[in-house]
């Protein structure tokens, strides 16, 4: 805006309006030409396909899928309710793709959170004054960044996760956690059907109060909220607690009950977290090194210790600098989840392949998948930009 104002300075209003109008016209013309090109291309491709006897339509999405997925949740209608349930072959192709998307997001979101934490630690470790820590972190980063991700995924799956004890000799820890080649089984939460509205309402209050307690500042409000949380918890127990623990039990081919993390998900998550952490570590290290040395010296002269300096002076500033680079990393990471097919993880790309093969609708599938990943990238980019605008707002730097 400022450049434009400078440009229009010192000319008559009429001329200025003309100049602005001509700019708009030019831009509109460019947009129209681009749109026309895209439409023309679409029509041409469609005609060429029609000549080959291939039709382009999305009608197949409503058809019954008739194949199984090893994991994945779908939204489906039960009367007037929308419920989340496991994918089954009687669901539609669209729901299969949604289950795949759900799986992709499951990995992507967990990986984003974990790699940010782990990567920051490794990045700080690379600058540690301790020789061992520094070189361990350096070694990790180098190993991870110089080998293809696909190979890392296959390594984690076949050489690490599938080396855990077989299902019939599953390691049983803490009475509830079962780890075996068939997956990692945690004690799960079970919802008792008998629970009434009252207990659910109270449980919601517990969560809301606890969340508010964390978010809000000010000691008094926190204390009040804490009291509310505890009171509501006690009330839920009296009314009838709607949740229970479901302990996993080993069976012939694995385990039953509880909440399971499949070996595929475990391996893919491990691979992507370790891989992205290395990149995040380098981003963080670069940002720390880019801060003026005076920051360290000033805080040292105030008598702050090194950990204190890092926590209160360095990292808050680093966090602002690294956001745009982190956004890029998150986008790559999300796209990396599509490598899950190598180890049989039913992510969006894997499910698209199955649907295309069952229905013969490849081109439509590619379009859907491309647009989905594009949208995901945009969403990540927009969210990070929003956070960026928030922390680097006016007068912050």
């Amino acid at each position, binding site marked *: 805006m400022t450049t434009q104002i400078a440009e229009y300075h010192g000319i008559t209003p009429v001329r200025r309006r003309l100049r602005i109008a001509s700019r708009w016209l030019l831009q509109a013309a460019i947009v129209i030409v681009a749109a026309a090109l*895209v439409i023309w*291309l679409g029509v*041409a*491709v469609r005609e*060429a*396909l029609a*000549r*080959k*006897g*291939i*039709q382009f339509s999305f009608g*197949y999405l409503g058809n019954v899928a*008739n*194949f*199984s*997925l*090893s994991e994945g949740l779908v939204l489906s209608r039960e009367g007037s309710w929308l419920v989340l349930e496991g994918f089954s*072959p009687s669901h539609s192709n669209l729901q299969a793709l949604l289950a795949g998307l759900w799986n992709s997001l499951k990995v992507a979101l967990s990986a984003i959170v974990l790699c940010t934490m782990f990567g920051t630690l490794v990045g700080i470790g690379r600058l540690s004054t301790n020789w061992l820590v520094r070189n361990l972190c350096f070694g990790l980063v180098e190993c991870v960044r110089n080998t293809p991700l696909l190979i890392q995924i*296959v390594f984690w799956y*076949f050489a690490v996760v*599938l*080396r855990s004890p*077989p*299902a019939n000799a599953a390691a049983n820890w803490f009475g509830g956690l079962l780890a075996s*080649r*068939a997956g990692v089984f945690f004690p799960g939460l079970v919802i008792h059907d008998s629970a009434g509205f009252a207990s659910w309402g109270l449980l919601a209050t517990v969560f809301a109060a606890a969340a508010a307690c964390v978010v809000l500042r000010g000691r008094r409000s926190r204390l009040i909220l804490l009291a509310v949380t505890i009171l509501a918890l006690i009330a839920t127990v009296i009314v009838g607690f709607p949740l229970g623990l479901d302990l996993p039990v080993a*069976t*012939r*081919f*694995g385990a*039953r009950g509880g909440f399971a993390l499949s*070996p*595929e998900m475990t391996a893919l998550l491990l691979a992507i977290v370790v891989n992205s952490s290395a990149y995040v570590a380098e981003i963080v290290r670069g940002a720390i090194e880019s801060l003026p040395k005076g920051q360290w010296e000033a805080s040292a002269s105030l008598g702050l210790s090194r950990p204190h300096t890092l926590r209160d002076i360095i990292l808050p500033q680093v966090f602002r600098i690294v956001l745009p680079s982190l956004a890029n990393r998150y986008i790559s990471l999300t796209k990396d989840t599509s490598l899950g*097919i*190598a*180890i*049989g993880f*039913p992510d969006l790309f*894997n499910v698209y*392949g*199955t649907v*295309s*093969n*069952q*229905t*013969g*609708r*490849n081109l439509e599938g590619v379009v859907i998948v*491309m647009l989905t990943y594009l949208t995901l990238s945009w969403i990540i980019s927009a969210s990070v930009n929003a956070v960026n605008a928030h922390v680097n707002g006016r007068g912050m730097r």
Partner: protein
Amino acid sequence: MARSKFLVAALAAASLWTSSASATVLDNVKQRGVLNCGTDNTAPGFGYLNTRTGKIEGLDADFCRAMAAAVLGDAGKVNFVVVTDKSRFNALQTGQVDVVFAHTTIKPVRESAVGIDFLPINFYDGTGMMVKSASGVKSVAELDGATVCTTQGSGTEATLAAFVRQRGFKTTKVLTFENLEKLFGALQSDRCNAMSTDKSALAAWRGNSAKPDDYTILPETLNKSPFAGFVVANDSRWRNVLRWATFALFQAEEWDITSANLAERLKDDSAFVQKFLGVKDGFGKDFGVSDDFVASMIKSVGNYGEIYDRNLGPKTPYFIDRVGTPNAMWTKGGAEYSPPWN
């Protein structure tokens, strides 16, 4: 990014145009003087790269060679293009290959929605299951609660879902892997209790493993998998040449014309055989190839029986018996059958 996508789309459109510009693939192939044949390189017995010889071998690969011999008169004029289960249809539509032989199951959706035409069936297979012998599983009925794995791009995924539903299994998991190598790895490391794919591929992977006895192929067959080559849709001229070249390989076995006795059979006084081998008034001209197209196929790769024995016979590690299966000659109770050549 947007620009590169645009370019890719433009290229795709252009390739669609160029490949539809000519009337028939047959003319293209003859003009080019080499046949681009799509085949797998990881399916022992069908299409796989023999690392010792550096050649692609297998039943599918030999069919590629036979077709090159029929159309161009020389079995060596093949350019093998490796296709995967996923890419095999696209490779054909974009004109990268002229024909694909890649252990592909004939399915209605492939002729209705994908835009290809199948050639005659050249191998009858069925979906099977393989388990580790140590598991003690003897029948698919015992697999309730097991994790069954398969590959993507085959027909097996739908077969498995139907199988689990039919049997009323409650907790059977189906995992889909990218390719057979990863699938077998998952069975080896006990992630999968059973691997499911075409029985021919199961036999091949079992035969290739360090200790074949560690693996058991369960007796049941879950579904039919008739394999056939395929060409791009709506090109009858091209399809008919290859269709009848395939039938000719069957017919040659029925009349016992082999690569060994071809020289004397060319002197055969039966008018049928003379016409068949193009000695006199052959069929080739009307198909748009040379009259001796059958003879040149037999000379270089042999008849169907020879091709089968070379790649799947008792001397190979991937032995699949023909006797008593649809792969036997129709005169021996099988389904291998050519329409009459007269």
